[in-house]
């Protein structure tokens, strides 16, 4: 284990967090992200059926979403297990991406409506594109982002790690203004 101390993408020692109304924003520093590319017709990674375009799937500790033909982003909290699962696939190509992205999880305590209100202010996408089990690449405040919806009450937004503060500003400022917008 290295003796270098890691720093979060937002420049904080631990994961950044903020709460606005029913929404909680948390930086996910513990997630392992691996790009997976397959040339053949492999349809599953361990027990995880690899999802099609626009889809997000989870099985146990492994989750994945489609990023292009034959390409997925794999998420896991067990880096070694995820790497081993990929390595077990013949011809699989893997690129370490954990440090390439800042991952912000947004959870709602009031069901889906606050998340829908938030995404309406953030991305130019119909609501069904961000329904639970969906994933997409989109622009958000001039940032290229990956947005996934692991659950009804959870939304995950990722962008380039270097733009973490800009993304955090966009998400937090929007979440902060939501109650004012909803009051009309």
């Amino acid at each position, binding site marked *: 284990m290295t003796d270098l101390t890691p720093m979060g993408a937002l420049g904080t020692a631990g994961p950044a967090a903020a709460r606005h109304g029913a929404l909680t924003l948390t930086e996910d520093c513990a997630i392992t992200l691996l790009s997976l590319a397959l040339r053949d017709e492999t349809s599953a990674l361990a027990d995880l059926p690899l999802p099609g375009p626009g889809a997000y799937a989870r099985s146990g500790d492994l989750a994945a979403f489609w990023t292009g033909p034959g390409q997925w982003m794999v998420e896991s909290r067990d880096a070694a297990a995820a790497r081993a699962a990929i390595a077990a696939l013949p011809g699989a190509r893997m690129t370490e991406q*954990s440090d390439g992205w800042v991952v912000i999880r947004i959870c709602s305590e009031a069901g889906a409506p606050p998340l829908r209100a938030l995404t309406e202010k953030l991305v130019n*996408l119909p609501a069904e594109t961000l329904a639970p089990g969906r994933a997409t690449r989109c622009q958000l405040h*001039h940032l290229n982002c990956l947005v996934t919806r692991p659950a009804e009450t959870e939304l995950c937004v990722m962008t380039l790690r270097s733009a973490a503060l800009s993304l955090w500003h966009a998400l937090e400022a929007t979440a902060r203004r939501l109650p004012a917008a909803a009051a009309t």
Partner: protein
Amino acid sequence: MNARLSGGLIDRSKPLSFTFNGRTLQGFEGDTLASALMANGIRLVARSFKYHRPRGIFSAGSEEPNALVTLGTGARAEPNTRATMIRLPEGLVARSQNHAGPLGFDLWSVNDLAAPFFAAGFYYKTFMWPRAFWEKLYEPAIRNAAGLGRLSMQPDPDSYDKGFLHCDLLVIGGGAAGLAAALTAGRSGAEVVLADEDFRLGGRLLAESDPLDAATAADWVAKAEAELRALPNVRVMPRTTVFGVYDHGVYGAVEEVSDLPGAPLRQTLWRITAKRAVMATGATERHIPFRDNDRPGILLAGAMRAYANRWAVTPGAGKVAIFTNNDDGHRTALDLQAKGVNLLGVIDSRAGATPFGDYPIFAGGRVTGTSGRKGLRAIRLSWNGREEELSCSALGVSGGWNPNVQLASHHRGRPKWDESRLAFLSHGGPEGLLPAGAAAGEGSTAQALASGQAAARAALEQLGTPAADTPLPQGEDRQIRTEAFWHVPGKGRAWVDFQNDVTVKDIKLAHQENMRSVEHLKRWTTLGMATDQGKTSNVTALAVMAELTGRSIPETGTTIFRPPYTPVSLAVLGGGDTGKDFRPTRLTPTHHWAKAQGAVFTEVGQWMRAQYYPQPGETHWRQSADREAMAVRSAVGLCDVTTLGKVDVQGPDAAEFLNRIYCNMMGTVKVGKARYGLMLREDGFAYDDGTCARMGEEHFVVTTTTANAGLVLRNMEFARQCLWPELDVTLISTTDAWAQIAVAGPRSRELLSRVVDDFDLSTEAFPFMGCAELTVCNGCPARLFRISFSGELAYELAVPARYGHALMQRLMEKGADLGVTPYGTEALSILRIEKGHAAGAELNGQTTAQMMGLGRMVSVKKDSIGAVMSRREGLAQDGRRLVGLQAVDPQQAIPAGAHLLATGAAQTMANDQGWVTSACYSPHVGGHIALGYLEQGEARMGETLVAANPLQDQQIPVRIVPAHFVDPEGDRLRD
């Protein structure tokens, strides 16, 4: 409050205080600023644009041309706000504008006396000479005298944001047609957005006294709104103006979220993507120009009716008259009478017109003039061959109704004249936009309801959604008879466009001046070009022009509208983010460390990079940069180079793929080695360079310049997906994944040896252009590249980005005794110029491999993008070459961008021999040096030229030298 009537949709239990020009007044919840001013007996509210004429409230909606006021104070002062559209909040501060001195005694009203000299076209003819006076004298003076409100000149402190909506049906307008459309589509299960610019749904239904079924219209509207709000598939958006129609069914809208000063959110800019839209935008009443028709107290008859019915207020304390050419004017008379207003009578331009109730009628009459300095006192009536002056405090004018077809014009749809309705109807509008109700010329309540429902049904059918049965209430179904009567001929000024002070005479003058096309008329007179876009004037002006030319209205032309429908603030168009948040910034992994060291940052695209690290006693950036550069030459320096693009290239065909991408051979690079590579555009010019490291048999890491990181990846992806899909290769950007630090200088190896874990850094084990995966600092995964941009022994060490900050700290700590020094982009630039390495200035899209002295890199043993084109005639013969330039006087700076000329040659393009690309002061050389492209440069070493900068009258003698000022043999970097 002397003008309140009974009834209305105001809440008398909720009084509100506000101020107008410092005077405290009272209104009620439900009032607009206009209705509250009227209720307080205030008629004079503004001064006109050009002649500073006294003006009052003219309409009851967004078409208002006169009652523009400034709201708020200080930085929140917002000019040119229509009083008719402001929902009255508690504490509102409003001021009139465009006057010198008090509103009642505007000194600029002298313009009105000089009006004969200020006719249309006056500026174009008068301010021609002397030419230089226009910019310095005439224009500033005119601008000072004209105009409306003034900006605060302070940053807007309010908060704005933006959002995106997607729906099956967007219903624009919440009047009878819009509500019928929304109810029909909403009950059918379609995703519906209903937007209305008013703060209350209902449109004209709120302004009328007619019932719907057995209930009042307001009750029916409330019921309909409650139902719509309860439907999960319907979004009701009052105070939301759809201001523009854009491509692919996208509509722009602004929602007024809050009107309270300092509210957390003031406005939201919505981009609404709708599969279909119903344009239920209603209609705007026309006026009839007659002499002095602009006095406060003269307003549209329909507006007068709205003020009476909805806001329980009358614009005149005395007698009120109506001047009309249609039946609708009589409707106003009846409603006013029912409210107890003292009615003078109805002047109907139609001979033989009969009254609709018990009031005097002047059939075939005309209003030929008015009097009253700051408000209407009397009208002059021409009737039955007699002229008489009648005392009158308010006059309602009705010249018929213009359907609000503006949105249908936004895709160049030109409205068509409908002679039976005496109105322009939309024609050729944007696909999917369906007009309904008064906007489609279906003006009665029954027609509007049916037409709104029909539009929704048509939209649903097109979308394949079955329409649910939606019974409609019974509404009035009057047939409004209108007789064309466009203006009252006569002497004096009859105003057509109130906001831009354009009269019938001006239109005549334009006609005399041969401005026969409508477009010329508009530009000559500025008619319709004010912030109201001529909502109350365009059609009337066309009709007047038609009369002058003896042609019909359709023969004369049509009018067209552009977005926005009503003014939109730039603040909300900006979407809310200002200052440093206006666009994203990217920070390097060592940003926070550099900031703590006091680094000065520079923007490089979106990146913030440390430019230099000032030390105590350094007063100029060059002192810092020179110190940093010398530290690299003599000891060891550290620079964050994370910003360089990194592309992970994997797959069995990776080598072949890179052979085709780079102009030089890349497939032969051995595992564990890196190679400098150059990429060409399809046209053969160079566009990016960098290193390509082979980490494994099927695994390469491509580095790009910072500026082209995105472009190179995009081009590589295009090649992978479209040009050579048969190649089995995968590309992933890893720019952000790795923190990369350049460790450069003769003591770099020694420093690195203190952080690597069991890794042999000797030249034998890890030679120049070597690359390896290793660990550092007790197990941190890392990549090491022995590459040099400075010409010194150098490395680039990459670790996962989260460790970049700590690695920089560790390297600084471990290298303290070695003289380790962080360096920024200024020193980086000095070092690479001294070494003669190309960067962005040398790769500016106009240069070739040959020009850079790298012609042989373009391999003839393989094909690659741009290779063939680089050998084409004209390009291959280009004799310009990259050279070094040294100032003859070492202390004389060489301006980058200067052109190279023979000494004594005239500074003309014919004598141009090349240009300076990059320049700096070289602490290593001890003088100013530069790089540049020069004709036959390689054969002219030692020659002296002039670097000319004619813009600043600089001519710097320079000597041509090799581009490598440091270690031309390259011994240092191979050591």
